[in-house]
């Protein structure tokens, strides 16, 4: 692996090996980052990207290999050591302390002091300033958990930026961010690069890589398979390398069946209100229809989804299933009516970490897998195997605890949890978050297939492209209210964006429909 740049790289990892209970996650992986460069790290779910990062920053101990950083051989034995060594990391799952304030989350570990005691005023002010640099304006003295996952992600970014590190690593920082935040982040990354800091950027969104990265390292099955200048590689080639076979880029089977507007809605909600979050949301999903729900961060999309599923009770408003008014007290009630829900925060609300993939996948299905009060293990196993194969979940066995899976594979298991229920309506909050391109297309076509068979889907995504490609209809929310509804040919990134930003203006335009 020859370097084109004359000076030795800032980071040089060679021959890194790491296995978990005998299953290799990294096999002879190598990774270089030059000074002042933005380096993309890409690979399928489970390729070993996060593991590589964790090995570097002392979360895991490598089984073998060498690491040189800033000209010296290093072996950080804890994230703390890595931080001291000049590496700031944003790990894949937001890893902050939910009960503590935004300020604390930014400054924990290197608090500002005055007379030996903590100087809260100064820390709060600095925190505010740091976040303002990311165009986030929040009350920094509130506990982090009060804020949306996007704000939490921005806080994690602010924390990393405040380290004055030589290398900043971002493991899928954008998976829960929307366009605006992403562009703010890119500005920051470019500024970092200009000031000589190197950045490692992991993402499954290829456009983002092209937008901000200089070079790319491609990983597959725990190995490094290529290392190239971003400009020298086409998307097509990138994906092929990543997946390891020559994949004809699957264009979306434009089978958007012109479906009958007459079909009765599976679910219909009107006038949903809930505290500050929802102030009158109407949404309906017909069978066979994929409805996109768009909006800026905090516009109330997730909350709408939760209310439809019975996870939260609305203050007012009505939900009807098959034209019959319902009041779901608990999610179980919604599940009984054939509704499935994949939540936004998989770590907190999705996976049951210690349980096996098998059990996680069939948890919601258990009542139906039961014969005379006893779980039918054979059928359970059949179903699990079918879905592992069908959506390509990378596991060593169905008995593997789900917490050991890579982020994207966890997400796939959660999707499978609902798909195996044969639901009538699926509510998906950022379902493709953290899923690699190949898998994403598989999932999207799976959803489309199911929709063609009559499944209704409510689809929340911060990636407008995804909405445009998939949705039959897009409902745009703003500040907890419907501001627009686009259908058919009206659906375009520009229009959605305009509605998200200005709401009313587009509604006028809407009148034309």
């Amino acid at each position, binding site marked *: 692996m020859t370097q084109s740049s004359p000076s030795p790289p800032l980071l040089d990892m060679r021959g890194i090996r790491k296995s978990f209970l005998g299953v290799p996650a990294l096999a002879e992986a190598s990774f270089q980052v030059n000074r002042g460069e933005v380096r993309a790290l890409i690979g399928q779910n489970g390729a070993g990207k996060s593991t590589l990062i964790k090995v570097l920053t002392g979360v895991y101990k490598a089984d073998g290999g060498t690491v040189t950083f800033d000209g010296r051989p290093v072996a950080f034995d804890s994230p703390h050591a890595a931080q001291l060594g000049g590496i700031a990391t944003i790990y894949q799952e937001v890893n902050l302390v939910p009960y503590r304030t935004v300020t604390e989350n930014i400054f924990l570990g290197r608090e500002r002091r005055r007379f030996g005691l903590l100087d809260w005023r100064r820390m709060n002010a600095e925190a505010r300033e740091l976040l303002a640099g990311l165009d986030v304006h929040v009350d920094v003295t509130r506990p982090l958990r009060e804020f949306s996952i996007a704000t939490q992600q921005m806080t994690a970014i602010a924390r990393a930026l405040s380290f004055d590190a030589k290398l900043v690593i971002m493991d899928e920082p954008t998976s829960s961010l929307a366009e605006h935040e992403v562009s703010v982040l890119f500005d920051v990354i470019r500024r970092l690069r200009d000031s000589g800091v190197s950045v490692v950027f992991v993402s499954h969104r290829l456009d983002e890589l092209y937008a901000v990265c200089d070079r790319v390292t491609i990983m597959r099955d725990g190995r490094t398979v290529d290392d190239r200048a971003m400009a020298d590689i086409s998307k097509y080639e990138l994906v092929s390398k990543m997946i390891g076979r020559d994949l004809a880029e699957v264009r979306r089977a434009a089978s958007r069946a012109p479906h009958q507007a007459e079909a009765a809605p599976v679910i219909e909600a009107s006038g949903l209100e809930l505290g500050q979050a929802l102030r009158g949301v109407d949404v309906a999903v017909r069978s066979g229809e994929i409805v996109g729900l768009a909006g800026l961060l905090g516009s109330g999309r997730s909350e709408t989804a939760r209310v439809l599923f019975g996870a939260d009770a609305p203050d007012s408003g009505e939900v009807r299933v098959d034209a019959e008014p319902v009041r779901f007290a608990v999610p179980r009630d919604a599940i009984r009516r054939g509704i499935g829900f994949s*939540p936004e925060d998989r770590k907190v609300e999705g996976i049951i970490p210690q349980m096996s993939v098998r059990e996680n996948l069939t948890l919601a299905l258990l009542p139906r897998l039961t014969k005379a009060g006893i779980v039918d293990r054979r059928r359970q196993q059949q179903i699990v195997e079918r879905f592992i194969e069908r959506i390509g979940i990378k596991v060593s066995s169905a008995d593997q605890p789900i917490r050991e899976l890579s982020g994207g594979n966890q997400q796939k298991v959660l999707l499978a949890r609902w798909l195996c229920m044969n639901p009538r309506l699926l509510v998906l909050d950022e379902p493709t978050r953290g899923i690699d391109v190949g898998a994403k297309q598989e999932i999207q076509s799976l959803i489309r297939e199911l929709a063609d068979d009559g499944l209704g889907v409510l689809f929340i995504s911060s990636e407008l492209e995804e909405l445009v490609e998939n949705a039959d209809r897009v409902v745009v929310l703003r500040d907890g209210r419907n501001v627009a509804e686009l259908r058919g040919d009206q659906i375009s990134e520009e229009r959605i964006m305009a509605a998200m930003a200005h709401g009313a203006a587009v509604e006028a335009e809407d009148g034309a429909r």
Partner: protein
Amino acid sequence: MNQLLAFRTRASNVLALQRHGALIALIALLVFGIVRYGDRFAGENLANLLADDAKFALVALGMTFVIMSGGIDLSVGSVALLGGVVAAQASGAGLVPAFGLAVLVGLALGSLNGVLIAKVRLEPFIVTLAALLGVRGLALYLSDKKAVVASGTGSFQDFGRWELLGLPVSAVFMFAAFLIGAAVLRYTAFGRTVLAVGGSEDAARLMGLPVARTKFVVYAMSGALAGLAGAFLAAQTGSVSTDTGIGWELSAIAAVVVGGTLLTGGVGSVMSTLVGVVLLQLIFNLIVFENSMGAIEISSFWESVIRGGFLLLVVLLQVKLSRRRASGGTAPA
């Protein structure tokens, strides 16, 4: 669950309110006592009560930090017994050496817990449960299974009689310790790290915080405070009986929780633990006073029922207060 809007909004204000819930209950009980029992209840009785509470409060102070770090320390009662035993045995050498020895012994045992929990990473509950047994055994062994009597005279014996600012010196010490504890929590990096570790240990580790060291310190501190509490008891009563410390861990946990600290870690307040301690001890005092009014007779059996009932009341009050705060009164999970 942190996505639950209702829950989110509640989160922090509520904890403040829970604290106040305990404070409100405390003030109500004090007013009740003064109105019903008059001067006999106020004045010296309350001063004595505070002096007696000091030892429980010290234990609860250590427990507060342990619980905020997401752990638990069941060994405090036994460590207090051991601290008392060694303090009483060393009492001939004077107050400071005796207290110092008790603190050292407590520190050593707390550190042992700390090493097993922070370094070896065993579960706090079971480690300190084992310590609860083992340390009690050790203390009984050292005391030859008999009460240990402090040497007849000297500063050690006088400790219980000293006053400062018109209060028994142990009560003053208790307030000072809590003020320092509160300052440590708010104004030192250590304090914030304790809360971070309790809030999410994984996150704290990935943030590069010294997780193991923090946990170690918290248990060592709890041990030292428990040892000191034992010395307080020995000095105040001139002896340490073999029953010392039985059930202290549960009283301390109750006081911490009544004060509004979450047992799951990550959130807490030091001063409100003090409120919890005084509140729970005050009930005993009130029952004795009520008994001597001659209106009703509260047997010790009823006393247990009343204490349990009161705990229930406070806990339900907290639940209610926190629900009221929930935005729009949505049903919580």
